[in-house]
């Protein structure tokens, strides 16, 4: 409709929209979904691996989740190459803060500084926005466990449970129904897997199509990010009864 206003990121349309930013969000709507849930004793991130082929060389590194610093991790949805740039930026920012202040960067400040970078690409430079949405999961001593969602416009907000990527609206409404404020980390894992199994397009759920990671405190009081191994993930899927094909799920 207003095609003449959408080729440059740095101008508004007559209706006051930034088309390039909206098109970036479209790109993310086609990517593999990711869900984050905040619990009393940790934050859970679950991601759907979109690219599964027998020919893919499996490695230990993850496709959807990335560690930013010891106390912060993120799940991505969207264009992976854009995500890599932003993740590297976030990592360097976290270390710069630690170098200057000799303590871990507060989670919200990290999210904010990354979003400031993203916002720059919507206002100046003539470059296209990043086609990535993030779910940041972290812990700091001021606000404890936190979950943030950010999108290509550079907007972010804190959430108790959030979903990005394909079918995120369906996932978000399911989370709204089933989320309780005093949910434990184990219940959060169960809820995340259940919601993801229902919103994923594939007919059956195996540990090869998923990634699960958690941010929690070790007994010694340090924040830790841990990715679930494929074997443990398979066991969890069986335990929570989500390995059946989606049509048979209760």
């Amino acid at each position, binding site marked *: 409709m207003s095609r003449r206003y959408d080729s440059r990121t740095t101008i508004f349309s007559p209706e006051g929209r930034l088309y390039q930013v909206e098109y970036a969000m479209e790109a993310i709507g086609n990517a593999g979904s990711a869900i984050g849930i905040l619990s009393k004793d940790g934050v859970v991130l679950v991601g759907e691996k979109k690219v599964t082929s027998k020919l893919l060389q499996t490695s230990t590194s993850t496709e959807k989740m990335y560690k930013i610093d010891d106390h912060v991790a993120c799940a991505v949805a969207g264009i992976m190459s854009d995500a890599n740039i932003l993740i590297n930026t976030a*990592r360097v920012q976290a270390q710069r803060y630690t*170098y200057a202040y000799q303590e871990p960067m507060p989670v919200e400040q990290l999210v904010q500084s990354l979003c400031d970078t993203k916002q720059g690409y919507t206002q100046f430079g003539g470059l296209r926005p990043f086609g990535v949405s993030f779910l940041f999961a972290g812990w700091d001593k001021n606000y404890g466990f936190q979950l943030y969602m950010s999108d290509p416009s550079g907007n972010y907000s804190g959430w108790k449970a959030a979903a990005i990527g394909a079918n995120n609206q369906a996932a978000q409404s399911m989370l709204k129904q089933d989320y309780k404020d005093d949910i434990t980390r184990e219940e959060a894992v169960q809820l995340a897997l259940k919601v993801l199994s229902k919103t994923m397009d594939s007919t059956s759920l195996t540990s090869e199509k998923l990634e699960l990671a958690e941010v929690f405190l070790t007994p010694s009081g340090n924040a830790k990010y841990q990715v679930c191994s494929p074997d443990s993930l398979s066991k969890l899927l069986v335990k929570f009864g989500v390995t059946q094909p989606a049509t048979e799920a209760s």
Partner: protein
Amino acid sequence: MSIFEYNGSALVSMVGKNCFAIASDRRLGVQLQTIATDFQRISKIHDRVFLGLSGLATDAQTLYQRLVFRHKLYQVREERDMKPVTFANLVSALLYEKRFGPYFCQPVIAGLGDEDKPFICTMDSIGAKELAKDFVVAGTASESLYGACESMFKEDMEPEELFETVSQALLSSVDRDCLSGWGGHVYVVTPTEVKERILKGRMD
């Protein structure tokens, strides 16, 4: 007085059988006045790499913070810890970057590399690496340390014997140096555990 002798320090690292020990004194001084008797000169980079920094304390602290920065980034990007050789190369590169305005530090790096092989090295303040198979020393007490280590060192010592040797070498050397001493701090690292011990020496 030279800038390297402003704070006073003593560092020694020795190789044993599938293990290594790294030890330092505990004095922090401002020329002849002792300011602290519990100063940490050795830092853990990760479970298998330890870094000791002798020389000017402020440069040692800043250099350590910069190295943590670089190592943390390496860890999140490569999803693994740095090998000791790699870390030594990083330290050398960082020091040479300041070739014409250097950090007044002499580092001692000790770690367990591939197949748990112990690795030790030292370098001068502009990054010239000195790899050794037996022991390396640094600090104001380095001359005494060279003599003590040369005479006390034996190849393939077990962790307990290595601890005794390193401790004796350190304490006897710092006793001959007025700028270092006030006890010792020894780390003995094997593939399975890290034993940290404090030595009580002549408190002067």
